[in-house]
Structure formats: C-alpha cells, structure tokens
C-alpha cells in the first residue's frame, strides 16, 4: 500500500485562502482604480504603479534580506496596501513621495511589527498620515478633472490646474461652491459609486461583514444632521459630508482591515461609531480638513481593548 497521510481531523478544509481574500479586495478596488486612471491620466497610473511595485518589492526584500524568511508577497496583501496607498494620494504626487509612503507602510507599519497579522495600525493609513504631516503640500494639491472631457487628462495632463476640495473650502471659508464638490480629491475619494460597488462585492462575497462600514456611515450622517439643523449654513449637508473626502474609501477598505479591526460584530459597531465621531470632530473642530485617517488610526489603537470588552458569547454559559 502507498504511504498514507495520517494527520488529525478535520481531513477536509475550506477552499478559501488569505490570497483569495486579498484578491477579492483587489477586485473590489478595480472599479475605482480603473475610473481614476481614466480620469486622471498617466499621472495616476504612475502613482499606482510606483506604489504597488514598491510595496511588493519592499516586502520581498525585507523578508529575504532582513528576516531571512520565506517570502510572503504571494498572499497579495502588499498589493492591497500599495493600491490603497495610491488611491489615498493625489495623482500629482511625485514618485519619490510615493516611495517614501511605501517605505512607511510596508517597512514601518507592517514588517517591523512582524508582518501581516501582527500590525496594530493599517499600513496604508499610517503612510497616508505620515505623508500628510511631512508633505502637506503634495498631499493637498489635487488635480481638477473636467468630467465632460474624459480624454483631457491623458492628452493635456491634468496638473495644469489644481484646486481645493469641498472640505478645505468648508474649513477655510465656510462656503462651498457646489461645482467643486465631487471633482477634486485624491483618486479614491471621488468615485463614490465605484467604491460602493466594491463594498457590495466584498459583502456579497462574504469577505467582510458590513457592520463596521455601516456604523461609520450612520454615525457621520446622524452627527452631521444634528450639526446641519443646529447651525444651518455652517456645516456641510449630511449627504454631501458622507460622500466627500475619504469616508467611503476609509470605511469600506481600511477600517474593515481584519488585522486592525475588532473580531466581533458588537466590537465592530463600537469601532465604527468611534471612527465616525472622531472623523466629524476633526473635520469641524480639528486642525485638518479631513479626519478619517486619524480616526481610523486612533480606533486601531483601541482594538485590543474593544476585543477584551466584546468577548463572544459562549454556548451554555451565562
């Protein structure tokens, strides 16, 4: 008889793997990625290419030369980080700033904590916040796209004109020219429906549960509704507030990162409400026009506590 395997039960296993989950996240990010390349042109393509390539190469180099361990790039998590980082940046970001972002994301936020699964903070967010503080000009200069002339970014280059986002305007002059809304921002910030499509895909494929994302949205809407009616004209309308800035990208793709979010549904809701509250507070009373990244980072730090607080209910125990 041939040599038989005798490993312990169970003898069958799920088809699902980390790689397949990450691939699903990449698929969910495709609509927004494709749209931003179409609208922002080759600048955007460059930012994405530099970000993804440097994230993957860095992880490969760190495992090979520093940790001397088998490479982990096959799990595709570095691709996800690279893509998310790129979608957080302006299409006008110079390549070397993108590279610094990748070093912070993969080198500092991910690998120095022990790699995938060990990091406390979402790597792409850490990089975004680092760049925002270190290179505020690059991080707040957005290309303005003419939605009526899709090809213009490719033919003329979009970097000729730059402009502020609705959030900056609200912050600085407390008045928003509605034509600006939904036009300027980082690539990942302006294609709401592409992002929501990605969200639907992730939920339908059961890659993520919707509770974290939905509780962020609900908190932001409720908070802005109160503000809107308390002081009309002073604050953004709730709907615009939700669809402006990084809330969609952050709540769908970064707050739901398994590693840096709570395990239970109840914990996820606490986490989501926390992110929503901190975002609105920073946006309206903090130093920065946008607060989602900071909010996610702060709540990331609370995850171990939330996990302690929200233990799952055990069978047959009161």
């Amino acid at each position, binding site marked *: *008889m*041939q040599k*038989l*395997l*005798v*490993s*312990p*039960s*169970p*003898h*069958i*296993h*799920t088809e*699902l*793997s*980390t790689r*397949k*989950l990450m691939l699903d996240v990449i698929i969910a990010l495709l609509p927004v990625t494709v749209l931003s390349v179409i609208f922002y042109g080759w600048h955007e393509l460059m930012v994405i290419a530099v970000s993804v390539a440097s994230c993957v190469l860095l992880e490969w180099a760190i495992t090979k030369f520093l940790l001397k361990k088998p490479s*982990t790039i096959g*799990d595709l*998590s570095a691709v996800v980080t690279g893509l998310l980082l790129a979608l957080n940046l302006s299409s006008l970001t110079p390549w070397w700033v993108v590279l610094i972002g990748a070093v912070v994301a993969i080198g500092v936020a991910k690998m120095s904590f022990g*790699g*995938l*699964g*060990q990091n406390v903070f979402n790597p792409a967010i850490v990089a975004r916040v680092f760049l925002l503080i270190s290179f505020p000009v690059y991080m707040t200069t957005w290309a303005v796209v003419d939605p009526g002339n899709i090809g213009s970014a490719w033919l003329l280059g979009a970097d000729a004109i730059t402009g502020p986002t609705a959030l900056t305007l609200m912050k600085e002059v407390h008045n928003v020219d509605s034509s600006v809304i939904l036009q300027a921002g980082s690539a990942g910030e302006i294609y709401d429906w592409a992002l929501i499509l990605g969200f639907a895909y992730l939920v339908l494929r059961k890659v993520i549960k919707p509770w974290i994302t939905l509780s962020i949205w609900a908190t932001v809407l409720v908070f802005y509704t109160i503000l809107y009616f308390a002081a009309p004209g002073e604050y953004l309308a709730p709907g615009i507030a939700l669809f402006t800035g990084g809330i969609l990208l952050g709540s769908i793709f970064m707050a739901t990162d*398994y*590693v840096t979010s709570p*395990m*239970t549904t109840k914990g996820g809701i606490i986490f989501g409400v926390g992110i929503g509250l901190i975002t609105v507070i920073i946006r309206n009373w903090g130093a920065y026009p946008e607060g989602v990244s900071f909010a996610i980072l702060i709540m990331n730090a609370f995850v171990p506590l939330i996990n302690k607080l929200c*233990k*799952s*209910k*055990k*069978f*047959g*125990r009161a």
Partner: protein
Amino acid sequence: MHNVTFKMGGIHPDDKKISSRCKIEVLPLPEKVYVSMAQHLGAPANPVVAVGDEVKVGQVIAEPAGFISAYVHSPVSGVVKTIGPMPDLAGNMVNHIEIEVKGDVWRDDIDRSTTLVTRIPDDTAFILDRIKQCGVVGLGGATFPTHVKLAPPPGKKADCLIINGAECEPYLTSDNRIMIERSSEIIIGAAIMSKVLGSCPTVIAIEENKREAIMIMSSALSSLKRMTDVCNDIRIQVLQKKYPQGGEKQLIDAVMDRQVKSGGLPIDAGAVVQNVATALAVYEAVQKNRPLITNVLTVTGDCLTVQHNYLFRIGTPLSFIAEYAGGVPAAAAKIVSGGPMMGKAVANLDATTVKGSSSILYLMEEQTKRRPETACIRCGRCAQACPMGLEPFYLFRLAKVDDYAALEENAVQDCIECGCCLYSCPAGVPLLDLIRPAKGNVLRIIKSRK
C-alpha cells in the same frame, strides 16, 4: 413547519453524499473476525470464553467490567483462536478475541425473521435489561452504553427524546440508508426508548439533504400511527443542513431551543439524544432478542468507482471490507474511519471494525492535504464557525505557551473537537491540533481538583 438548526457557529462543507442511493448490501463473512473488548465508552469488557471454545452467532463472549461497560457477543459462529492485545484504529493495544469462522450457526433464541413486532413489552426494567444484555451502545460516535443513558439519575427527567438522524458529516450515508430501508424498526425502537424514559415526547431529527429518508420515515410513521398507539408522541423534525448538527448539544439547541450548560449533560437540559442506528439496535434487542453484532458502514470516496453501504459483522477486518469493495483506489492519499470532519485517519487497514464503525472513506491528496501555515490575519472566521462560541485563534495562542489557567478561563474544556475552526481557517493555522491536547490537559487539571 420550518426547518430548524442550531444558532451558534457551524459550517457548510459540500455534503458529498455520493453513496446515498446505494442500497445496503450484506457483506459476506470473512475467514476470521477480531472482536475488540473496548468498542464502547468505559471499561473494556472481560472475555468469558477460552481459546478453543466453539461459539455461536450472538453468544456472549465478554461481560461488562463495570457500571459503564457493555456485553460483547460473537458476531459469527466458529472457534476462538486467540485472545490477546492487538492494535485498534488509533494504534492502541487492546484485547481482541480472534474467532475462526465456521458456518453461520445462530443462537436459537434470536428471532431472525423480518416480521415487524410493534407490541412493546410493558415492563421497562425488562426492556432496559434486554438492551444491556444485547450489548447496545450509542452508534452515533461516542459508543456510550445505551442502557446507562436511558436510566437518568434520580431527580432528573427527560422532557424530550431526540432521535439523531442528522448525519451531518459529509460522505457518510449509513444512517440515511437505514432510515430508508428500516424506517418502521427505527420508529418502534424510538418508541421503546421513549417508554423507558417515562413516555416522553420524541423527535426524530433529520437534515434536509436526506429527502428520501424524510419522506419514507414520515410515511412509515403515519402508517404505524394507524396500526398502533405506541408512536403517538413521535414526530419528525426536518433540520437545515449545517455541520455539526449531529453534535448532542447542537441538536438539543436546534430541536428544543435549550442550551446544555457548560460541563453539564444533556439530561440536565431535559434531553436524551440517541442515534437512529441505536434506535434500530434497540428494536432488534428488545423485539427480536438480537444482540448488537452487525452495523451498516459506508465505503466511499471521490476516487472510488463504485460506492457501497454494507451490513457487516462487527469484528470484520477493515482490509477485508476494502478488498471486497474493489481494493484501495490508487489515488487515495488518506483513509479515514468515520467522517471527514471528525473521523480518524488510519495508517493501514490492519485494524478491525467495531460496533461504532461508520465508514471507510478514501480522500485524494488534493482534497485533504493541508496548505502551509501562514500568518493569522485575525479574520475571525474560526470564531464565527465555532458552534460553542469559543475563540479558537486565542485558544491556539494560549495553547502554544501552555497557559492552562487562561485556557480554562476561555473555556477550552467546552470544545467539542468538531473541527469547524481548522476547516474554516484561510491561513491554514492548525488550530484544533493544538487546542485538542490543551483541552485534554485542562480537563485533567479540573478532574484532579475534585
């Protein structure tokens, strides 16, 4: 009525019931049988025959060696050749009685006719004794002596008898087949046990993927209800398909919506659970005076050309059955005795069948080979899958550092070893491999405190 299920955790593996339409075939007698003295939970039985003795089919060859133990009967007629230790499925040395088969001479007081006996004896003490004398044990996996389980400790009363026809393990179809082919006997067996338990209501629980069994059991139950009044308190409950529905605690939760307390027994929640095959064995014992010497086993696998369900004599070597079913397929990389979730992988087919044998399952390498372990991504799928509401990822970390105090606090002792956590892990983390021995150690610590 809607299909119920247990509420916490669970998984939906492909059920692969590819042998469900294969009728039960009677396996021919082997040349020799090897009857284990430890085929029930509790103390191994004491042999009461000597080498050279002639035995008949159904003759007692070993007696219980304690309160939790069981009689063992000769499954064949012939001569006792040896009595001594032999490796069982797990490789543990266990006393076996080797009998050389000669003819097929049965004890004359066994009723071998197929006539359905619907009248149930009045004396419950007599029924319990019959079940004990016939060596009936639970055939759902744990092989706990049935007469002990049917006699709840004083002060505890069964509100419901659940007959477990869930058969939630993929591939296994022996329970499905007996529900199709021996439906009336199973229902009478259930009625007998219900009577012993003080005529408590009885629910026969079957998973929805066994449509034919549900249909046939339902019509058998209605016609029995027309013939006799012993089945009036029996009903059939269809369950959703979910693993591990056949686990006692999960089944009680599904059917009665009650949770057995941690560390408690089903009877504490007013439930007694018996497998459909046990119900059949009880029928045979009480109505036909026939000891538990046969059972039905599935020989199956995607790499096996023809699937089988065999009625086998207990003690028949696994190798004999595999040979008769066409030999071990070349593509088989793992042979499992039992289901793919909780069964035991064997290194060879030298071991013998026991009362609780349910299958020979052949798995191919690509079906069973584990993927290399990668980092836990804290996706929480193991915790979502755990039917006991535990956090396997955390127990695994604690088990790695032997933190038994924390393991106990996090209820490792409640683990039912169903394998849902390891099955669901996308990172290939061998959760149960470490949780299982940690649970054993914690249970020993808890026991030593008493």
